[in-house]
């Protein structure tokens, strides 16, 4: 884990003091809401439907038990006992009071956390693979590079007022667990033929109202040149991005309008200049960061036999654990998607429990996933049973990773002031409809994603099944789309036809799933069958 140096800490502490002063001036009336709003947004504070909402950054989704417990204590002391994990690997508190925020931020700063750049037209929290440093299939740990990018992008003076928000994801594996093709910039670590480390660079992906898949603008940039190259990407965007129209201001529109080859040419031209400025860090600085992500001291000669006599435990092991690069270890995903629950919500007590488990069993490491779950990355297989027992007791042992009930849902109209329709109740009804664990397992991998409006925070464009809430004459209505993916095989889902009521969309999902079960060939997921047979049979089953 990266630990702040004195510069990091001083920057964050100074910001806490600034914001405390700004809040006092707002509360005394010295500052109007119009003056205050951009300042609070720069500190992650939104005004939502029922209260203020604070979004706390979890850099590349990694945190330790001390930080996790702090989130739990803030949930307990200042929220109503909950934290909500989001698709950007962050955490949102939905019930915050403005007058408490300086104190909350001060407490976060004591554990090297903050809410800086979690909103506004700047470079947001860098996201990454939740299995980083643990996955059996990775070229290298992406987190030192994500940390380097975090430091570079924090308070970057030139990029504080970009045309629009900017999201970067970095992975180090072949399998894409971070949706890099749907980010403004996606970076994939790889080695060239000579074995040198570098990155494939994708630009111009995104969701929102105009979903687009990123284009590869460079197949390989040597790691030593990463920062200057990304700086050049941002500079071209900052200069030519569409500031005239908020709906066209994301980099995806610029790349689309110029064409990826022309955008890439302009980046190369800019980079030729930027490279001469000495922006890339010296090796020593990179080594300083990388050392903090050194692999933990994995034990050797551990047993790999698991007692599978308890069927519930065996199912959970099969569904919610993944292969670890060290023998005798496993990666555990703690599902925050119980039947009928709110996707991504955790109580303060659950947050504390996960912190305890991480400290005891996972080298004090925790990860947040973009599908709103929590990961214990380095667990000995012989401890899985004890972990499972503790999770069962806390209502956290749902064995549904990547199944139809492992739904991503945005806050929707229950909390969000931009929403057209509620998302969470739809998720709840679908998890209830498919509650039977045998049925879920038989259906297999099925990524269902729900957004309450076209901003697509719930990734509906990337769902094998996507649901979008719309406003139809003042009533909630839901559009269904099929065929999206956020993995290596990224695709954008297509709307299948007229929308549905809340109950109607749950029925339609069930009909789609049953159609798939009737048509699938051995080994096919819902997405594979849909891609093979096309929309027609599904449409016939749903619309009759």
């Amino acid at each position, binding site marked *: 884990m990266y630990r702040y140096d004195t510069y990091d800490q001083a920057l964050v502490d100074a910001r806490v003091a600034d914001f405390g002063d700004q809040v006092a001036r*707002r*509360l005394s*009336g010295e500052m109007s*809401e119009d003056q205050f709003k951009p300042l609070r947004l720069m500190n992650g504070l939104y*005004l*939502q*439907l*029922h*209260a*203020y909402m604070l979004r706390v950054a979890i850099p590349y989704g990694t945190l330790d038990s001390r930080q996790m417990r702090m989130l739990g204590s803030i949930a307990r002391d200042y929220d*109503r006992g909950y934290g909500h994990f989001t698709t950007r690997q962050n955490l949102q508190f939905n*019930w*915050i*009071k*403005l*007058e408490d925020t300086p104190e909350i931020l001060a407490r976060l700063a004591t554990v090297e956390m903050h809410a800086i750049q979690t909103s506004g037209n700047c470079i947001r929290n860098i996201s990454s693979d939740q299995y980083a440093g643990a996955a059996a299939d990775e070229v290298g740990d992406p987190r030192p590079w994500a940390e380097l990018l975090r430091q570079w992008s924090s308070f970057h003076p030139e990029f504080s007022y970009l045309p629009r928000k900017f999201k970067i994801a970095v992975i180090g594996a072949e399998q894409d667990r971070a949706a890099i093709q749907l980010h403004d910039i996606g970076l994939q670590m790889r080695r060239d033929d000579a074995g040198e480390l570098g990155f494939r660079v994708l630009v111009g992906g995104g969701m929102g109202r105009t979903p687009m898949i990123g284009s590869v603008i460079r197949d390989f940039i040597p790691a030593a040149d990463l920062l200057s190259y990304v700086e050049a990407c941002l500079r071209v965007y900052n200069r030519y991005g569409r500031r005239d129209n908020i709906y066209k201001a994301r980099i995806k529109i610029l790349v689309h309008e110029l064409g990826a080859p022309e955008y890439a040419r302009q980046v190369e031209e800019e980079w030729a200049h930027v490279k001469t400025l000495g922006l890339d860090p010296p090796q020593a600085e990179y080594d300083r960061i990388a050392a903090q992500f050194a692999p933990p001291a994995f034990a050797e000669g551990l047993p790999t036999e698991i007692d599978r006599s308890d069927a519930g435990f065996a199912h959970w092991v099969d569904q919610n654990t993944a292969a670890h690069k060290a023998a005798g270890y496993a990666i555990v995903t703690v599902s925050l998607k119980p039947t009928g629950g*709110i996707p991504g919500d955790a109580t303060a007590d659950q947050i504390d429990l996960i912190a305890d488990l991480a400290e005891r069993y996972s080298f004090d490491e925790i990860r947040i996933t973009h599908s709103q779950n929590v990961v214990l990355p380095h667990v000995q297989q012989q401890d899985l049973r004890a972990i499972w027992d503790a999770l069962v007791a806390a209502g956290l042992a749902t064995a549904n990773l990547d199944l139809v009930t492992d739904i991503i849902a945005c806050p929707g*109209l*229950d*909390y969000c*002031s931009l*929403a057209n329709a*509620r998302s*969470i*109740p739809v998720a*709840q009804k679908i998890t209830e409809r498919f509650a039977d664990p045998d049925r879920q397992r038989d259906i297999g991998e099925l990524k269902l994603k729900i957004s309450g409006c076209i901003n697509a925070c719930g990734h509906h464009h990337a769902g094998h099944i996507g649901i979008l809430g719309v406003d139809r004459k*003042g*009533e*909630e209505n839901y559009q269904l789309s099929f065929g999206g993916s956020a993995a290596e095989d990224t695709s954008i889902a297509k709307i299948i036809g007229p929308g549905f009521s809340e109950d109607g969309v749950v029925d339609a999902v069930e009909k789609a799933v049953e159609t798939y079960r009737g048509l699938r060939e051995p080994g096919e997921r819902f997405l594979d069958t849909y891609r093979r047979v096309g929309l027609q049979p599904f449409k016939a089953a749903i619309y009759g």
Partner: protein
Amino acid sequence: MKILTGQNLASGDVVWWTGSGWSLHLFDAVDVGETGAAIAATEEKALRVNVPYVIDAVQTADGPMPAHIKDRIRAAGPTVHPAFAIHPEIPILKTPARHQSNADAPSEVKAN
């Protein structure tokens, strides 16, 4: 009818204009007719409310009911956390019909 709503500056709580102050309860809201903008400006300046705005509502047997679902949810609280809902009984899914006995009242017609 038109009613005036906003949020408390310090707490963010949703509030409704009662004619003399701000209440957490929708059913305390009064018809502000054409005076909403002026009240909003004064109250916001005095820091008694944040981001106030006027909405359309309908007088029902229970009391004023916002025309738009978003404001009904603001009044009721999140539908997915009954314990956090301040007025879970508010029928958020029902677009309010004008209350029969009031339907022809001239003041009602004017306010709409």
